[in-house]
């Protein structure tokens, strides 16, 4: 029996500039107990379709045609009060932004209880308490979590609370909208296993929305591929992954970077590497640098020298809280080290005078995670490109600035006539992130710190942007520190990889060794946690979470480092 059947669904967004057809003629059924993945880029209509089932379309969205049936109920004929009652009890929603999905001023159990009360009217505390404890336990959390406030939980725990909420009234259908996009790989695996486990238990249908083909392959039975509001391919996930018919599906599958797989980078390299360093002086040097907050070690004492003569990409990988972003901010001088010195071309960045500091800012550029937050929304994007260029005294004339901007845009694969002169909100996330890379390129720095540059970009665009960044090294001789939680991309782009765990270096060396053939248990855990777009590869069982916790616990006790060989021009030492 179908939990949900959608027939010929169309959703329109009437705007002043005409009607936008967000979804057109979509038909699909989700059987009870089945997991169906909605995959596609942002704007493909996957979330819009799901929200239409709950009648929660954002203004001014409207269902323009077709029908949505949940069990026997025609969802589109329900009035507001009937729809309210159907939410959570018959169809539940697990949102994307788990970080912010819970009311910050209410305890967890109150937020589970109000859901029950709104549908069943129960206000008996003991009864409510028993049910919230039970549902928390079913998602692997102790009952005492109910007493806590959202800010006292980690991202993974918050997402589990949202899952608990999603199953508390045993609905027929669960809609999970990118439930793990804000989590690191290890946590992602645990949360997905929890979700699959509880969904199995209550026998509900599940719609999983996402854009990561690997995660889909490991999580769903059926795949529905959406592009521009149209269902382009739908079927058994094995069949689609092994034998995709539509070119778009093929592209989605091939764009997933794999550890050990084919490189997504161009084999042929443009110009030979340019020598931009000063002989004998390292470009960037850490001298026994450490960072502690109170008695928490954010970064263990370490020394390294990055020689700028031959540009290199050094990757720093780890989960959230591993200290990788701390390393980035130490390098940028945003955060003073607790001990030791950070040197740029032999000069301590904490003791630079105004002129040296300006030169340092000129030579060291950064690309951050959120491409939206990097632009001032009140200015056209030109401003973001132009301003530093002029500020650092590179500009000679307006025409030259314009020419430079256009050249930089073309270098990152953007058509200048389409992006320049527009406001940040008018561009897609991918375009914005490429503009940030273009800005760095215009200044032609010697060093680029890229902190999770592609984690907020659609999977299909990640490869392109990383290619842009990689080109900076090859064509322009810029050395890059690539900070990421994504081992597959680190494997392909880097010359040297440092794996961090709780501020300690777990493993370090060339990527073929560290990621291709990991020795350290932590690196192995990270690699095991990657969902592969390959159904024959196991992604663990529900008991994995407990095993992982044990593994991490063991790791926390012994801080041993595996050195896996070195590359010339980069020496790492731990003290």
């Amino acid at each position: 029996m179908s939990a949900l059947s959608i027939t010929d669904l169309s959703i329109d967004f009437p705007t002043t500039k005409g009607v936008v057809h967000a979804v057109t003629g979509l038909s699909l059924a989700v059987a009870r107990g089945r997991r169906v993945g909605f995959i596609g880029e942002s704007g493909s209509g996957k979330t819009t379709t799901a929200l239409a089932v709950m009648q929660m379309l954002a203004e001014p969205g409207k269902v323009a045609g077709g029908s949505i049936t949940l069990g026997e109920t025609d969802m589109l004929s329900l009035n507001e009060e009937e729809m309210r009652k159907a939410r959570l009890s018959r169809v539940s929603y697990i949102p994307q932004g788990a970080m912010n999905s819970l009311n910050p001023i209410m305890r967890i159990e109150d937020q589970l209880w109000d859901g029950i009360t709104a549908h069943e009217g129960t206000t008996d505390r003991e009864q409510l308490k028993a049910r919230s404890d039970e549902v928390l336990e079913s998602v692997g959390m102790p009952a005492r979590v109910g007493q806590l406030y959202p800010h006292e939980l980690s991202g993974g725990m918050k997402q589990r609370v949202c899952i608990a909420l999603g199953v508390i009234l045993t609905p027929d259908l669960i809609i999970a909208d990118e439930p793990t996009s804000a989590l690191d790989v290890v946590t992602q695996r645990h949360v997905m296993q929890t979700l699959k486990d509880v969904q199995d238990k209550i026998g509900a249908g599940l719609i999983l929305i996402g854009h990561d083909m690997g995660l889909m392959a490991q999580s769903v039975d059926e795949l529905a591929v959406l592009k521009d509001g149209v269902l382009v391919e739908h079927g058994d996930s094995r069949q689609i992954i092994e034998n995709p018919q539509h070119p778009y599906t093929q592209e989605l599958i091939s764009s997933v970077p794999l550890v050990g797989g084919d490189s997504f980078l161009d084999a042929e390299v443009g110009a030979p590497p340019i020598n931009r360093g000063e002989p004998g002086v390292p470009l960037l040097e850490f001298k026994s640098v450490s960072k502690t907050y109170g008695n928490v070690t954010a970064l263990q004492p370490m020394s390294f020298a990055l020689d700028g003569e031959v540009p290199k990409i050094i990757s720093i990988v780890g989960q959230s809280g591993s200290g990788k972003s701390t390393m980035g901010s130490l390098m940028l001088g945003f955060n003073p080290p607790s001990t030791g010195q950070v040197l740029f071309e032999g000069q301590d960045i904490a003791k630079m005078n105004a002129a040296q500091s300006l030169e340092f800012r000129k030579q060291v550029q950064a690309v951050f995670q959120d491409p939206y937050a990097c632009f001032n929304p009140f200015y056209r994007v030109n401003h973001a490109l132009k301003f530093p260029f002029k500020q650092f005294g590179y500009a000679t004339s307006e025409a030259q600035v314009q020419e430079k901007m256009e050249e930089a845009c073309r270098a990152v694969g953007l058509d200048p006539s389409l992006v320049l002169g527009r406001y940040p909100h008018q561009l897609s996330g991918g375009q914005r992130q490429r503009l940030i890379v273009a800005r760095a390129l215009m200044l032609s720095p010697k060093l680029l710190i890229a902190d999770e540059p592609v984690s907020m970009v659609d999977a299909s665009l990640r490869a392109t942007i990383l290619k842009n960044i990689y080109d900076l090294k090859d064509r322009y001789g810029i050395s890059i520190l690539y900070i990421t939680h994504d081992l597959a991309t680190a494997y392909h782009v880097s010359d040297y990889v440092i794996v961090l765990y709780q501020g300690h270096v777990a493993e370090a060396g060339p990527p073929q060794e560290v990621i291709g053939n990991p020795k350290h248990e932590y690196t192995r855990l990270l690699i095991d946690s990657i969902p592969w777009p390959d159904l024959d590869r196991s992604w663990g069982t529900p008991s994995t979470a407990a095993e992982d916790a044990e593994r991490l616990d063991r790791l926390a006790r012994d801080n041993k480092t595996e050195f896996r060989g070195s590359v010339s021009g980069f020496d790492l030492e731990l003290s």
Partner: protein
Amino acid sequence: MSTIPRAYLLNRLLTLFLTVFIAATLIWIIPRLSPVDPAEIMLGRMAAGAGAVADSEAILAQLRQNFGLDDPLFVQYLKYLWNTVTFNFGLSTATFPTPVSALIAQALPWTLGLMILSLIITFFIGNLLGALMVWEKSPKLVRVAIPAAMVFTSIPPILSGLLLMWIFAAKLRWFPLTGAYGLTVEPGWSWDFAVSVMHHGFLPALSIVIVTFGFWALGMRGLMITVQGEDYVTLAKAKGLRPRYILYKYMIRNAILPQITAFALKVGLLIAGQVLVERIFAYNGMGKLLYDAILDQDFPVIQGVSFVIILMTALSVFIVDLIYPFIDPRIRHEVTS
């Protein structure tokens, strides 16, 4: 509910003390930058009353001595600090020899009653209306009517006060024109007196509410728009919670937090009274006291009133600091050096 840690309490008390101390010092310094000699003003007032004053030099010297104006500045300052601590603000120069503290004690209850009451009413009305402007389930009429009502906010209080007086007191005769209580009732803890006070306070309070609710409504509107876009509100809707419950527990409850801080700051400011409102309605509160004192260059009264204002502001901020962690669990009673 946790209790307030002692270290935090001490830290806040120290902040409170320092704020009041610095403010008290400033209050003392600023009037002394004025070239006016208060003794000469008093003499001038006597002269105006009597036509001429004999032996004026001697009287001036006597006055200066009485007010301690002959002491070195440092001694004056120390005396002032000690007096401040003991709430002894000296004698008013304008209504010599009434002690300033007596004047304040007389005016303060009226202002506290009128202002705090109208502030609380305004706070509730303003925030509720601001929230309703944003809430998607509000009746259309409400969403149109509130912005229209905001026009009143831009009317100067003196005008709206006069208008209210003209309509309700002069024309309709529903309320008395001026004063804080009727001349026929005896002040005291009697029912008649209470009714009279409320009857007299209604129009001034209404004029304050009309003029100030827009501040709260507009602020709340902005906060509510932000909260409306939060994921937890979307999830609350997806949970099938009742719309009103979402409005109170998920939206207003979160949006109101910054408004509470603003409330604390307003309490202090309002002690100064709506000077003009008190003037128009001949309401003998702190605003009128301060206004008259400024006109008369009555330094001791200005100092005394200013000090009370600062003390009230600092105290209400202190109280908010203590209760905030209970209303927003993300804030902790923590000592940040």
